C-alpha cells in the first residue's frame, strides 16, 4: 500500500505511473501488482507481485519501474517480487475498473471470495460497449492469462472480460 512517509511515497508514485504492457489502460497500481515502495536516500526499492504464475508481463513491468526510478535520479534501484499473498482481482482499484471498461474490456464483475465460496455466484458479464448483461462466454481463455472472450448478444460485439481471480 502507498507508504505514509514522504520519501517512500515518492517512489510509490513514480512506480505507479507504469502501465501494464498487455493492458495499457491500467497502471500497475490499478492492477494491484504494485505492493510496496521504500526509499532510503538515493536507494529505491519496489516490490511487485505477479498476476498469474506464468505471466511474462511482470519482467517488462520490472524493467519499466527500474527505468522510471533511475530517470528520477535514484542511483540504486531494486525491484523484487513477492508471491505471497497471492494476487487477486480484488486488489484492482475502482479507478482501474472504470478505465478497463472505457478501454473496452469488461472488468471483473464480483469479488474473488464471492465466487470461491461453497455456493459460487455466477454473475452476468456486462458488455463494455452497450452495457447489456445479455452476453455469452466464447472461451474461458483469451489473449492473456487474465482474460476470457465474450460476445454481447445485444450489440453482437465480441469483447475481452477480465476474469475474477
Amino acid at each position: 500500500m502507498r507508504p505514509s512517509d514522504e520519501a517512500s511515497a515518492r517512489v510509490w508514485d513514480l512506480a505507479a505511473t507504469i502501465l501494464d504492457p498487455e493492458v495499457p489502460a491500467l497502471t500497475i497500481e490499478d492492477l494491484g501488482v504494485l505492493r510496496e515502495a521504500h526509499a532510503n536516500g538515493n536507494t529505491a526499492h519496489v516490490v511487485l507481485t505477479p498476476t498469474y504464475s506464468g505471466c511474462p508481463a511482470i519482467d517488462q513491468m520490472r524493467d519499466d519501474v527500474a527505468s522510471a526510478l533511475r530517470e528520477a535520479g535514484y542511483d540504486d534501484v531494486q525491484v523484487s517480487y513477492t508471491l505471497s499473498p497471492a494476487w487477486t482481482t480484488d486488489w484492482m482499484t475502482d479507478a482501474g475498473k472504470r478505465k478497463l471498461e472505457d478501454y473496452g474490456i469488461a472488468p471483473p464483475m464480483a469479488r474473488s471470495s464471492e465466487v470461491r465460496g461453497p455456493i459460487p455466484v455466477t454473475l452476468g458479464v456486462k458488455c463494455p460497449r452497450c452495457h447489456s448483461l445479455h452476453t455469452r462466454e466464447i472461451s474461458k481463455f483469451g489473449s492473456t492469462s487474465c482474460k476470457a472472450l465474450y460476445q454481447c448478444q445485444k450489440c453482437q460485439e465480441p469483447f475481452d472480460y477480465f476474469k475474477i481471480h
Partner: protein
Amino acid sequence: MSSEHDLLDLHGEVSLDETVLDVELPGSGRVATPEVAEYAMRLGDDSLILSQQLAWWVSRSPELEEDLALGNLALDLLGHARALLHFAGTASNRSEDDLAFWRDEPEFLNCWLVEQPGTDFGDMIARQLYFSIYQVQLYTALLTSADESLAAIAAKAEREVRYHQDHAVQWILRLAGGTEESRERILIALNDMWPYVDELFTDDDLTDRLDGIAARPSSLRAGFDETINAVFAEAGIEIPTAKPAMTGGRQGRHSTLLGYILAELQWLPRRHPGAKW
C-alpha cells in the same frame, strides 16, 4: 539485494532473472533442505514436462480458441515449474535453467502420466482431465504446508489449476456427449491414460518423511475420485478398468518417451550454452 543483482540492462539485453527470483519467495534467502528440494523437483518436473507437451498444440488445435486455451495452460504450468525448480535449486545452488536444461532422464522426477503422448486431441484431454483434477487436490492440500515457500507457490497455483480442471471437464462432457466417433475415441483415451493415475497417489519414503510439508499423495485420492465420479456420471462414462502400469518416475525411472521430450526441450541451450535473447 545488492547492485550485482541488478539485472536491468538499459541497452536492451534482458536476461532471465535468476538472481531476482532469489528474493521472490517468501522468507527471502530461504534454502530448501535436500528432501524438500527433491519433493519440489517432483512437482516442478511434472509441470515442466506437461507444459512442454501442451505447447506442441499451439497452432495445431482444432480452433483458435483452443490454441489460446492450451497456450494459457502451458504458460501457467511453466510459471509453476519455474517457481518450484528455482526453490529446488536453492538446495544445490543450481538455477532453474540449469535444472531444466542440464539434467538427463534419470534425474527427472516427473510422473509417467505427463510423459504420455498427447498428439491426439482425445489423449491430450484425457491426460489433462486426470492431471488437472490431481493438481487441484495437490495444491489445495499444499496451502497449509509447513513450508512457507511451497505454501506460497500453491496459493497462486491452486487458483490457476482450477481453470485447467474446468477446461478438461468441459471437453470431456462435449466429447462424450458428441458424435459416436468422439465418444468412442475419448473412451479409448481415458482408458489408455488410466494406468498412469495410480502413480500420482503413491506414498514413498520421501513423502512419509515430509509429513506436514509435502501433500501425502494417498490422501489426495479421495478428492480425486469424488471429482472423477461426478464428471463420469455426468458424461455417462464408466470408470476405466485398465490395470495400473509399472512406473517409477519419482525415482527417476522413465519410459523411452521422456527422452524425446527432453531432446526437444533441451537441444537449444545445450547446442548454444548460455544463449540469451
